[in-house]
């Protein structure tokens, strides 16, 4: 059976040219960038080339502002805990939102144990945070604001440029978790005005297990990993150079191909959304209608549960994510969907489709063709559905 992969937020396949670059690197370079001999220098050159490629993708002024990390999670941990330690004498208050990724929420959970205070802001029904609420939350003790650029469950794009102006005016640092946006839509650290930005290669056809943190020059960020002099003393440990080479090539390709990729994916996403809305009653499209990632569609199907939907789609060869409490080990309804005001039962029936460069109209049409029947089968089995129809 052919596989239709619609779960690119969980990880993208490698771009063929990324694979090629990584294999070439494996075959030719095995030195350590810290060594001064020729093989070490070859490694060092590969490292710095990747740094330039990533800097170019997000328009960083200087490649040294890019620090390679083991992925989005480490990048976020480094930004938040690094600033907390770096500015511990200045203040102990951090502002965030209720819909951040777990890496942000749980980094802040750790900081709470160390007597930092956290203000977590509400979002509206579309998942948007109000910049005025951010400004209101700032106290003389505030050292950092951490708000995502694009939400990883509903795709809503937050007004980061507006928040950056507020942060600057109040002399507070701003970190944005841009893991789901970088490489998908244009992201420019200068026009956004952020001090710190997290990204991960496996969102844009690079390998998993590698990412980067943009640290604007002069931003006081303490290392998360202590050790040697790597990464301009900001992240110790021998670099995952094979992964970094893949990230660099993925960044270069994303920059080249973005103008073609994003509108194509958005057209496919809109086709999927329209097809499902037309054929399946009682569904909710989550996220902002326009300020949304182009490749993502979050849909809640009332009266049924998401894991069952996911399993039945898998049986048809279609891979999607669910945000139900039962799925993937998480036993609680999505904090993002609940924060946008969705009730628990409806949140349970949520599927997350994320499209990628290999998807076609035929893939989308297959989903539109098989999903109505699956939804009806599960609704016919659901005690909630009967009640609704009767009442």
């Amino acid at each position, binding site marked *: 059976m052919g596989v239709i992969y619609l779960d690119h937020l969980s990880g993208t396949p490698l771009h063929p040219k990324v694979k090629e670059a990584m294999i070439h690197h494996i075959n030719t370079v095995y030195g350590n960038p810290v060594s001064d001999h020729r093989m070490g220098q070859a490694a060092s050159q590969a490292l710095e080339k990747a740094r330039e490629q990533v800097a170019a993708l997000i328009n960083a002024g200087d490649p040294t502002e890019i620090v390679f990390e083991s992925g989005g999670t480490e990048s976020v941990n480094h930004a938040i805990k690094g600033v907390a330690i770096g500015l511990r004498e200045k203040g102990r208050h951090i502002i965030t939102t209720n819909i951040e990724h*777990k890496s942000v929420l*749980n980094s802040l*959970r750790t900081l709470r144990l160390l007597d930092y205070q956290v203000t977590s802001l509400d979002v509206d029904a579309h998942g948007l945070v109000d910049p005025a609420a951010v400004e209101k939350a700032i106290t003389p003790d505030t050292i950092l604001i951490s708000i995502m650029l694009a939400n990883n469950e509903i795709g809503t794009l937050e007004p980061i440029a507006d928040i950056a102006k507020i942060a600057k005016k109040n002399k507070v640092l701003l970190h944005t978790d841009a893991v789901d946006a970088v490489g998908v839509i244009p992201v420019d650290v200068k026009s956004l005005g952020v001090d710190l930005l997290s990204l991960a290669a496996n969102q844009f056809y690079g390998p998993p297990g590698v990412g980067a943190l943009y640290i604007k020059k002069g931003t006081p960020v303490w290392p998360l990993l202590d050790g040697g002099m790597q990464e301009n003393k900001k992240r110790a440990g021998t670099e995952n150079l094979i992964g970094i080479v893949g990230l660099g090539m993925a960044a270069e390709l994303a920059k080249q191909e973005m103008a073609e990729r994003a509108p194509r994916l958005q057209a496919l996403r809109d086709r999927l959304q329209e097809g499902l809305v037309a054929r399946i009653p009682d569904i909710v499209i989550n996220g902002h209608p326009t300020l949304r990632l182009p490749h993502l569609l979050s849909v809640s199907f009332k*009266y*049924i*549960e998401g*894991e*069952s939907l996911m*399993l*039945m789609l898998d*049986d048809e060869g279609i891979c999607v994510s669910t945000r*139900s*409490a*039962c*799925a*993937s*080990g*998480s*036993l*609680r*309804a999505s904090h993002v969907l609940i924060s946008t005001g969705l009730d*628990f*039962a409806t949140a*349970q029936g949520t599927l997350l489709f994320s499209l990628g460069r290999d998807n076609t109209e035929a893939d989308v049409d297959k989903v539109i063709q098989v999903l109505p029947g699956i939804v009806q089968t599960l609704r*016919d*089995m*659901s*005690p*909630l559905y*009967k*009640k609704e129809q009767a009442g």
Partner: protein
Amino acid sequence: MYSQTVMDHFKNPRNVGEIHDADGVGEVGNPVCGDMMNIYIKVKDNRIDDIKFKTFGCGSAIAVSSMITEMAKGKTLEEAMKITNKDVAEALDGLPKNKLHCSNLGADALHAAIKNYLDRKAGKVVDLEKAREEHVKAPGGEGCYCPYCQKEVAEEAPFCLFCGTEIPHEHDH
């Protein structure tokens, strides 16, 4: 993650539906927890003559519902009352550890249906519609519980203080 038996019962569930003139109806769980199960029984000569289910829930909840109806069909009420949730999980060749609590409600639903039948027989009037309404709307509890040992744990705890098991991603509600 699921056994073949679970997947078989999930994909081809037995005895789906409801019995309009059921002798007993049992309902357990609620959508806030993630799973809700209704069991309908017809009783003849003290035996479960017919049984059907309706379930809102994940793959394992549907498989559990299907399996309990197969296990209970034709049994005497006394025999049926002896079926445990553990028996159902074993008949399914096991369930993922974190699903043992939340979706393994089949025996509870069956026992509720039998109790409902006995109550009716004893002349107690049970307003099922009303009971169900309240159940669905129940908030699902404010506390957080370890999915393995069911003890109450602190909000956001990464592992259970009582049984030491790591709580995957989040805690049970």
